[in-house]
């Protein structure tokens, strides 16, 4: 068990390193930020000075070595645009993304799980069909289009919520719903199939035979087991939301991490892009790792197989 764990942690770290290297190379191929930072009439000398200041005048391998070394020291460099530490910028924007991701996940779960359960229990009924239509629509709809239509209807035509930006609860509803709708569909389907599988399992049949009340069967025995994969999935989702609700953030002008990275790509602010993508990948990989560990620990079959 422990060997497995340590092995996975090591692999995760290695993966993160590879990810950041990929981004490093890609961003440097995409153009020099100096031209955007200086006026068109800036002299060659001005450019040289700026490049030296930003550390961009070194040959690529040297820059890379410095970069990797600094990561291990916890130094992600300074933004090319503001010269302030990258970590500051990321911390500034992370709360907004976390807020959005959390509420979106909440919405997904609050819509997806109940509908999934009812859909499984009343299998084949009208509600089941309705829920499945809802689900498949959710997974077929382009998020950005949904966001725009919601803005059009609720913010522009009805005027009940603001059209963008971050603020109170009213600012959060539309973007969180847009982000959450798609995944609520996934959660719904997963809950439904998980419930169906559990309900059809021997364990439940046995409980029914024992004469337990249907409700008890459902809720105490069935649900607990069925929800385990759903919960882990929801956590993964949250991590993915953190990962980059870029499009939702763009449509709703939400000041989150995804949008920061997107803008930094436009301004060729390499350090922010590198660190930002690294953070997102790290979250994903770590989340994966945690879920794996959690699942193998919780699932007796696997725990015993490994022991």
């Amino acid at each position, binding site marked *: 068990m422990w060997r497995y764990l340590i092995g996975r942690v090591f692999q995760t770290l290695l993966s993160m390193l590879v990810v950041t290297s990929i981004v490093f190379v890609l961003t440097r191929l*995409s153009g020099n930020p100096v031209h955007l930072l200086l006026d068109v009439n800036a002299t060659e000398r001005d450019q040289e000075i700026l490049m030296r200041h930003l550390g961009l005048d070194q040959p690529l391998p040297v820059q890379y070595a410095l970069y990797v070394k600094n990561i291990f020291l916890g130094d992600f460099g300074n933004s090319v645009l503001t010269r302030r530490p990258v970590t500051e910028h990321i911390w500034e924007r992370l709360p907004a993304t976390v807020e959005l991701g959390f509420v979106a996940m909440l919405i997904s779960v609050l819509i997806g799980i109940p509908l999934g359960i009812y859909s499984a229990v009343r299998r084949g009924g009208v509600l089941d069909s309705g829920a499945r239509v809802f689900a498949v629509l959710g997974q*077929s709809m382009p998020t950005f289009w949904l966001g725009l239509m919601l803005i059009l209807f609720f913010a522009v035509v009805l005027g009940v919520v603001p059209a963008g930006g971050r603020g109170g609860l009213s600012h959060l509803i539309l973007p969180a719903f847009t982000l959450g709708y798609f995944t609520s569909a996934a959660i719904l389907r997963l809950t439904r199939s998980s419930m169906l599988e559990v309900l059809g399992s021997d364990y439940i049949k046995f409980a029914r035979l024992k004469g337990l009340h249907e409700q008890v069967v459902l809720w105490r025995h069935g649900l607990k087991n069925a929800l385990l994969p759903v919960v*882990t999935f929801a956590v993964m989702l949250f991590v993915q939301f953190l990962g980059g609700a870029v499009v939702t953030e763009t449509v709703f002008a939400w000041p989150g991490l995804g949008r920061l990275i997107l803008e930094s790509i436009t301004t060729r602010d390499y350090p922010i892009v590198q660190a930002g993508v690294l953070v997102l990948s790290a979250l994903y990989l770590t989340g*994966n790792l945690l879920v794996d560990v959690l699942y193998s620990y919780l*699932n007796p079959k696997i725990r015993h197989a490994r022991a």
Partner: protein
Amino acid sequence: MLARSRDLPWFPGAILAALVVTAVFAAYLAPQSPTAGDITAKLIPPVWMERGDWEHPLGTDRFGRDVLSRIIYGSRISLLVSLIAIGVAGTFGTVLGLISGYRGGLTDVFLMRLTDIALSLPIILIAVVMVAVSEPSFRNVILVIALLLWPRFARQIRGETLAVKEQDFVALAVVAGRSSAWIISRHIFPNVVPTLLVITTLQVGYVVLLEGTLSFLGVGVPPPSPAWGLMIADGRGFLASAWWISLFPGLAMLSTVLAVNLMGDWLRDHLDPKLRQLGGRAVVLESADAVPVGHAIQEAPARGAAAGDGG
């Protein structure tokens, strides 16, 4: 198990057929050119509204281009991009998955870590960076999507390979001295084809959405191509005065992806009895030993949670 006639996917089938017909015969179906606009005819509303005109049944955009014609030609783009990208990614991913699953050992670990890394990259952002390096073009969009898509194939095919590998006829072939390549191509591959088919169909919807998102952000198919995502982006600022520019391409995209997803569901339900009974989760739970469950859960809705957004 023969499908009963009422089980056949009439609805999605019809839409998909219409889509293909539209894409192939676009030149005959579209009333106007999709790119030759006349700015003196800009922002004409759909025909049922005041100022509407049968010459432009769904209205015109800011450059006076006919929306209906653009939607019709746009189907070509969505179809071509998805098919080619999936072709490339699918081939590459399947080969990798087969090798990884069959050989096991270090090769497997290495390839799976590679897949992990590829999957951990925030798709949209990486696509933007990649396009920033070059410039938006048809070829680049396909490349970018393929590069980000292959891990999904690799992972699923690997899982299937692992399951098939345990079968008796494989063991027999090994004993009989057949080479790995022969076993893979003769025994393993034919057995993963049903899953491959299902995944492929499910990915089409995802890719159409992904291409739409990339075009929307300006890093997909370049103007003046009538890509649906581009059209939606174009109409963004004019939701109040010219809502038809964004609405109709969005509906087109929605219908296409919906049809594809429904079709994929049907295929999955009917091609693999195991899967059908449990709605697709059996693969996940039974191969718990082989595939770290976390990943399996993550892949469970094969469309991937990330399709519509950041990734």
